[in-house]
């Protein structure tokens, strides 16, 4: 029998409502009805061996501490899997369920699953744990258990889940390669016929949405400002000393251009594999305008060109990697007193 731990909040534990939301994680002496419902659904293949509850406020206010305590409790009962909720449309409970499920999966390496309403803010964790959509209130409990239990059992047994639309969990956004029965062209023509006929079809790649960052205030006086050059066009010193990959770069380069007035064919080149490299290799200023910045510096049009430039190859590089590079070096830029940045892309 697979040992499964169940995480719920103070309300489902029968401790109380909002007035008891401050209580810390605790293992229940008696398995509550909501946990028993799961055990029943697993028909002897698995059971809830322990139910842990935590007050929603306690969790939200001291998340790290609560998580450590929860992990400890799971270990103490030898839990092989964790299920959380369902949280329906309760915001803080959903946040706790998503967070606990994601953290336990990452830290303890055991499978986790939760359930909640599609608009619950806790669904932000759907790329870090499996989340099953539920109704928006506890009236949907029976259906939620029926949807969550079989998926939990599969995960507990170490089986791979099928695609989200077949198994009924929320789209995780984690892309996994697989072989289809038919070639892509045939799948495309079939999808076209369905779309034209107004029949339902499932896209193989749901379009992403991109987040936004508000613009920073303008530079007051550019003639006093230190300006840094950055590029995703892969400009590197000749010979690519740090071996930045021509595609799907794993790192970025930081190069000192103190005293460099012009990028020449003999000294700089591009490591980028995604475009015709001939022009950038002839004159890397065509991608990273060091020559112009030096002129402007001499003429007092800008305060200073920052001593280092940062570079990587955008070609086939995961957005998450690019994000990480920039998050890292932008800290250095701020620490070095840079006032503004010019980023060039190819």
């Amino acid at each position, binding site marked *: 029998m697979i040992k499964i731990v169940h995480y719920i909040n103070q309300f489902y534990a029968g401790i109380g409502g909002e007035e008891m939301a401050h209580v810390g994680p605790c293992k229940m002496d008696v398995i509550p009805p909501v946990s028993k419902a799961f055990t029943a659904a697993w028909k002897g293949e698995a059971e809830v061996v322990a139910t842990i509850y935590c007050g929603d406020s306690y969790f939200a206010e001291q998340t790290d501490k609560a998580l450590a305590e929860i992990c400890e409790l799971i270990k103490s009962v030898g839990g092989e899997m964790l299920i959380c909720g369902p949280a329906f449309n309760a915001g803080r409970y959903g946040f706790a369920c998503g967070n606990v499920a994601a953290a336990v999966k990452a830290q303890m390496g055991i499978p986790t699953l939760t359930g909640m309403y599609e608009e619950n803010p806790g669904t932000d964790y759907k790329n870090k744990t499996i989340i099953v959509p539920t109704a928006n209130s506890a009236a949907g409990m029976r259906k939620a258990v029926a949807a969550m239990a079989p998926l939990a059992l599969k995960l507990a047994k170490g089986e791979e889940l099928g695609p989200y639309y077949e198994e009924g969990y929320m789209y995780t956004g984690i892309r996994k390669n697989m072989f289809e029965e038919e070639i*892509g062209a045939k799948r495309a023509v079939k999808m076209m016929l369905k779309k034209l006929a107004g029949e339902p079809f499932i896209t193989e790649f749901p379009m992403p949405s991109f987040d936004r960052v508000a613009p920073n205030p303008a530079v007051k006086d550019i003639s006093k400002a230190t300006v840094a050059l950055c590029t995703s066009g892969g400009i590197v010193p000749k010979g690519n000393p740090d071996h930045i990959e021509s595609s799907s770069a794993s790192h970025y380069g930081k190069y000192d251009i103190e005293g460099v007035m012009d990028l020449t064919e003999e000294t700089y080149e591009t490591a980028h*594999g995604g475009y015709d490299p001939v022009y950038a290799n002839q004159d890397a200023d065509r991608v990273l305008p060091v020559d112009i910045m030096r002129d402007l510096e001499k003429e007092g049009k800008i305060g200073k060109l920052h001593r280092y430039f940062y570079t990587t190859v955008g070609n086939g590089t995961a957005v998450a*990697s690019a994000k990480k590079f920039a998050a890292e070096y932008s800290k250095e830029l701020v620490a070095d007193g840079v006032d503004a940045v010019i980023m060039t892309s190819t």
Partner: protein
Amino acid sequence: MKLELGLIHVTDLQFGDVSKVEDHVVYINQEDIKNLILEDETIESVELHIAKPGESVRITPVKDVVEPRVKVSGNGGVFPGWTHKVDRVGEGRTHVLKGMACMTIGKIVGFQEGIIDMTGEGAKYTPFSQTLNFIMDIKPIEGLKQHDYEKAVRTANLKVSTFIGELARNVEPDEIEVYEHDNVLEGMKKYPDLPRVGYVLMLQSQGLLHDTYVYGVDAKQSLTTIIGPTELFDGAIVSGNCVSACDKNPTYIHENNPVITELLKEHGKTLNFVGVIITNENVYLADKMRSSDWSAKLCEFLGLDGAVISQEGFGNPDTDLIMNCRKIEAVGVKTVLITDEYAGQDGASQSLADATPEADAVVTGGNANVVIHLPKLDKVIGYTEYVDKIAGGWSGSLQPDGSIIAELQVITSATNEQGFNKLSAR
């Protein structure tokens, strides 16, 4: 328009004293090929190899792959604008040496080319692990510029493929496939109740190792236009690109365009296949705007109900794809896109550089960032010294024991965006 493809199933490929096709075996006299290739004075030398499915052989860096064909009746000759004069093709009969492929390797840019493994993990992903491969390793004369070297290698493969195809002229085909399509007026009269579907074929056109040619014309210098579906089966579109290797269309795939094949099969049954629109993916924004405007206009002029759009490559061409999608949907034509993904090695990142809500029907060739482990193989045809730098490789990709750890994008045609393969992602 009607084109018959006479397929001759090739069961073996060998070097021999006389170049010929006999009992399904293709024999090649090495001198014939060398003489042909060395006609080009920019080529210093050439080495020839054969690789067969299941052999422990790695081929790299691969430039282009071509299927040998010959036109036995009807107008024109294969690869118009290259090995035959510019003349309309796509009608009559063409013989195909099915099951073999001619491929070129060489050190043009080095890091912008692909790997083909004939066995093991890599073989699962490339369609060319299943073909009998005739390989030409071409070395240029000292000091030849990259652009000229690329052209020499591309032309050499077309010449050799034409020569080998010619050997099949008088061979009785094992199988005849008939592809027929109607002009706009006939199609409308014959199938008034079927949905009118077109195909927007996007061609990579971004410079060295990123170009495509239509009847000899560099696609970046052309406006979006219309081409007959069967013209491609006679080599009207030729590839000059191979980076990243996984999602560029070798000439072989243009000759066997799977979307056209599927649409022709359905023509008159479930849909009315109206035509093929070819458009480019240029490096100037104005070109991208103009070309995608034109794709949408042509879809509108043809009165289409739906259009399948296939991309070539990734990165900035994602924008061409999205522009095509948005503008074509805006004129009331429903779209299905075929692309591939760069979702990071863990699959958690954004797959495309651009996006739009109208793109609600997408077929994917898989995530090209996935890391694969290619075992050491007994024989390497070509040069593995580029593996660390190849698009999809990294410093240390080539292991001391000769195996390779790299991203799927190093494998020729692994995530093809014309939908040539079964690989997908969810």
